[in-house]
């Protein structure tokens, strides 16, 4: 989203335009969730942080000094709330309150990939598990950065930097280093595998992939 567009949505929402609010939520929802999850909060705590960030934004709409930076404002708010929740909740996280670390890819591939035949579906599921194992081997800082950057609406580096409280210029190089490390971990867990990574080739039934 362009900064100018973000600013005009904030102004419109502040004037009572609920449709503008909806667009803001749709744009930044996955970022706010990603930030809370990146701090290893369980689902209940992450939900509190997520809701607090949006409630606070609703109250601050007409008061933001830099409405074009609303994404960074939300990321900063989510970061601060996450840290304060981590510090203030002495209670242990219940078992059923899964953090990012507790998630496990399914044994079967999701319905949208059901077009695959059974054998390929198993291969895809195994590769998802391998990738997740590799991700979990990364240093905490890499897991955090990548979780934020992997928000389904890809965040800008400015927003990611606000989420992590680091200089914007550090995001690109750290991302590259973390992805490289992820690939290294993946090649460890999958042995000397050199299969193509992109499953779209499988989906398209690419013959080269089939022969490999």
């Amino acid at each position, binding site marked *: 989203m362009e900064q100018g567009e973000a600013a005009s949505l904030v102004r419109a929402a502040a004037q009572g335009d609920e449709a503008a609010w909806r667009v803001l939520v749709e744009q930044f929802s996955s970022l706010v969730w990603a930030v809370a999850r990146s701090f290893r909060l369980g689902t209940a705590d992450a939900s509190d942080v997520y809701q607090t960030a949006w409630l606070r934004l609703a*109250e601050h709409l007409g008061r933001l000094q830099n409405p074009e930076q609303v994404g960074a404002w939300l990321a900063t708010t989510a970061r601060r709330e996450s840290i304060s929740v981590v510090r*203030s909740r002495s209670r242990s996280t219940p078992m059923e309150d899964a953090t990012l670390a507790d998630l496990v890819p399914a044994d079967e591939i999701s319905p949208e990939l059901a077009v695959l035949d059974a054998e390929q579906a198993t291969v895809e599921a195994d590769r998802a598990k391998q990738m997740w194992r590799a991700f979990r081997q990364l240093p905490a800082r890499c897991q955090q950065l990548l979780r934020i950057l992997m928000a389904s609406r890809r965040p800008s580096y400015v927003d990611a930097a606000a989420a992590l409280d680091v200089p914007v210029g550090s995001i690109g190089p750290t991302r590259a280093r973390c992805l490289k490390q992820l690939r290294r971990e993946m090649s460890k867990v999958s042995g000397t595998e050199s299969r193509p990574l992109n499953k779209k080739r499988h989906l398209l039934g690419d013959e080269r992939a089939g022969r490999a």
Partner: protein
Amino acid sequence: MPDEPDDIEVEERLRELIEQLDPVPEQLLAAALGSYTWRTVDSELALLVLDSVEEDQGALVRGREDVRLLSFETSGLTIDIQVSSGGQGRRIVGQLAPPGHATVQVRQGSSVTDLDADELGRFRAQLRDGPFSLKCSTGPEGTRSVVTDWITI
């Protein structure tokens, strides 16, 4: 720094995987859309100016981990809140400064509860874990309306 093709590929796969594993829960998205209706148009906003959790990590070491102090401020009004664990949730004890009678509305979840602050500006309430905000009506005839920033307790 130019992207290596493998980086782009691995990132695309990781994004898909995380989208499957850890999407924003649907009811939360609905809550975020709904939080717009909590917006107050005619109230002043009292900003969080002190949170003992941020300011005073030493307190944890001194064994006062059960008590958290929050202070919200707007021009001419301060709302101090002490939060402690109590019963099923959290107990709050509040103090308005300058002191005086006021109506205090506790906003939490989808519910609101009205309380009275006594002539010394004191009030107490029982809350659940989660985000909350207070809306205070003070001044002559309760003409002045102030809301606090939302915060998770």
